[in-house]
């Protein structure tokens, strides 16, 4: 049933800085399915955002994709006909070339962690949305009954009134009150939650096949966060859009995603259905992460919250064998520090890379 949209295969991203080479993403493999939500969780600096940027071929200098491929199954036309797929390797597209620019925003949208600074301060919300639309030559307004006009519409520029209508419609869809007034608001006149809604409206205005949400609610307070998540879930259902949801908030991911990828130091350590992973985490790292969630009523008064012992390793000097072994409570001396674990199926549709589940 599930149809792959993006397949990341053995991706390596390296940053060649003065102090040495940092392997930000180290052999990452994952699949994002059409219309589904994939959650990506992990500590800060484990390569979540770099992976997202790699999909749009937007890795900041001096970073580089050194190995691997990102296969994008591009669907021609939005009529949903099967068998019309183009296959593009996004990692090999020319940086800032025409192909990747038409995919960015047009087919893969992205929203960021900082809604406060993601809008250009000199433009109103409406101008932002219209820019996104005009960059991809989209004309959602079509006159019924005029087929010639419809064909012409594919590349014609919209008029000012039409553009404004589109912007207002988009703002209404993301639940901004009084959209006909807010369309003329500058970013500094909007609250954080409203700005993030505008960002979502921009990303959705081109009806992308996938939305990359890079910690979209981290900077917002919990009530706004709940509203934003509701909107995203609702829009996903109506627009049949895949979401790659990056976060370090386990509560958020549990309510958003169908499938989860757990990352540690640029590698996927565990992958599976969200319920499976929360009920029965296999990798010691995932187990430790889940233990560190504070839970009401589960703990006695005065008991300390569990934390993962040790620190994330020095990125220039990664541990041998399994990168998690220095912090692992199940550390098996002589094995974990020597042998790199393989990707193993631990249950149906549930994978982990840990030597515990490999036969010796």
């Amino acid at each position, binding site marked *: 049933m599930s149809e792959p949209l993006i397949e990341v295969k053995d991706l390596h991203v390296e940053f060649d800085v003065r102090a040495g080479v940092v392997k930000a993403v180290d052999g990452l493999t994952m699949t994002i399915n059409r219309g589904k939500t994939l959650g990506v969780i992990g500590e800060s600096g484990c390569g979540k955002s770099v992976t997202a940027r790699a999909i749009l071929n937007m890795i900041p200098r001096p970073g580089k994709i050194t190995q691997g491929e990102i296969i994008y199954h591009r669907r021609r036309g939005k009529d949903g006909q099967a068998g019309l797929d183009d296959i593009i390797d996004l990692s090999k597209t020319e940086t800032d070339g025409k192909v990747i620019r*038409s995919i960015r925003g047009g087919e893969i949208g992205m929203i960021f962690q900082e809604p406060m600074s993601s809008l250009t301060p000199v433009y109103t919300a409406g101008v932002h949305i219209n820019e996104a639309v005009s960059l991809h030559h989209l004309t959602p307004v079509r006159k019924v009954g005029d087929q010639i006009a419809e064909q012409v519409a594919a590349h014609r520029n919209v008029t000012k009134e039409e553009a404004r209508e589109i912007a207002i419609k988009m703002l209404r869809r993301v*639940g901004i009150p009084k959209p006909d007034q807010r369309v003329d608001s500058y970013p500094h006149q909007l609250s954080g*939650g409203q700005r993030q809604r505008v960002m979502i409206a921009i990303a959705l205005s081109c009806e992308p096949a996938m939305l990359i949400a890079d910690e979209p609610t981290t900077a917002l307070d919990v009530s706004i966060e709940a509203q934003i998540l509701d909107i995203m879930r609702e829009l996903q259902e109506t627009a049949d859009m895949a979401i790659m949801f990056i976060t370090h908030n386990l509560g958020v991911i549990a309510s958003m995603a169908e499938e989860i990828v757990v990352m540690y130091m640029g590698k996927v350590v565990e992958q599976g259905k969200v319920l499976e992973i929360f009920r029965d985490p296999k990798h010691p790292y995932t187990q430790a992460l889940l233990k560190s969630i504070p839970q009401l009523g589960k703990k006695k008064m005065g008991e300390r919250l569990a934390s993962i012992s040790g620190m994330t390793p020095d990125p220039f000097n990664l541990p041998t064998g399994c990168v998690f072994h220095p912090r692992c409570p199940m550390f098996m001396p002589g094995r974990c520090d020597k042998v790199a674990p393989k990707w193993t199926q631990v249950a149906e549709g549930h994978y982990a890379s840990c030597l515990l589940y490999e036969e010796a």
Partner: protein
Amino acid sequence: MAVAEQNAPAIPVKQKQVSQSYWSLVWWKFRRNRVALIGGIILVAFYVSFVFVPEFVSPYALEHISDYVEAKPTRIHFVDQNGKFHIQPFVYGMTRKIDVVARTRTYVEDTTVMYPISLFVHGDAYKLLGFIPTDLHLYGVDQKSDPKAIILLMGSDALGRDWFTRIMIGGRLSMMIGLIGQIMTIIFGTVLGVASGFYGGTIDLVIQRTTEFLSAIPDIPLFMALAAAIPTFWTPIAVYFMLTVILSFVRWGGLARQVRGLILSLREREYALAAKSAGASDSRIMFRHLLPGTMSHVIVIATLAIPSMILTETALSWLGLGLRPPLTSWGVLLQDAATVRAIHTTPWELWTVPFILVIILAYNMLGDGLRDALDPYGSR
């Protein structure tokens, strides 16, 4: 937030949401700065009168050569010899006295004839704004009835031309060169500065070393070399245009460097990344998203730099390197007043100086006001 607004009581509150754009905030703040406002008004008045309608403001045409050579400024009277007060000011006629021994030429007032000064008089024909034929002048004395009538508010030059007329007409070139030159500097400086800051690397290196090279050359010799390169057979207008290009060519470096610094910080903002992820091209990110963020700074720098542009033109023309007669600019006029003899015998030829001072002070007043106003969120 949204929930609260939806649950608000259903009483229709008529409240027009005024969208305060950045520029309306700037204008609101600028208006409260009286000094800057005065500077701005002076500049507007100067530019309108000197650039667009100097022929109308001055009483004569530039080519109007009178019999009164090196005459001192005409005095304006309200009270005549008999102690009678006139509401309409008037001037007396002038008679020339030549002292053969001292070899001087002086003019004395001939109190027997009186010429009333009136507004909107008919005089020399000219074309207003270059295409409306007219002969109206703002002020003057009636020349039609008595050809000897003359008013020289700031005296006359060695050919008998009205000095005030020459200052008015000369102001056009001097003031335009500052403005046009500065606009060209802004274009060179921002485009190169934005590219330099946005791309970094080799492009940045080349542009920055070029600005350093240009700023390392002493100004005056560089101007001399460039001005000497202008072919002598060119028309005065071509020379004038070339001079503006030279001025801006030498001066873009500082602006480019400041814009580069601003872009270096702006390009790391999330909105640059957001624009990129929306599929915007490099030039779109640079000029639509990043450049507006530098504009307030550029405008202030540019406003404060125009006076130095005007002064440079004046200095170059004074040295004989810039504009040359028959073109008239303030630098050319000052050249006439550059000798000790001129200062001694015809000191009114220094009337050009106050005009230059006023315009430069006005620019500085405006520039300071803009600097405060363009940061409307700042304190003060």
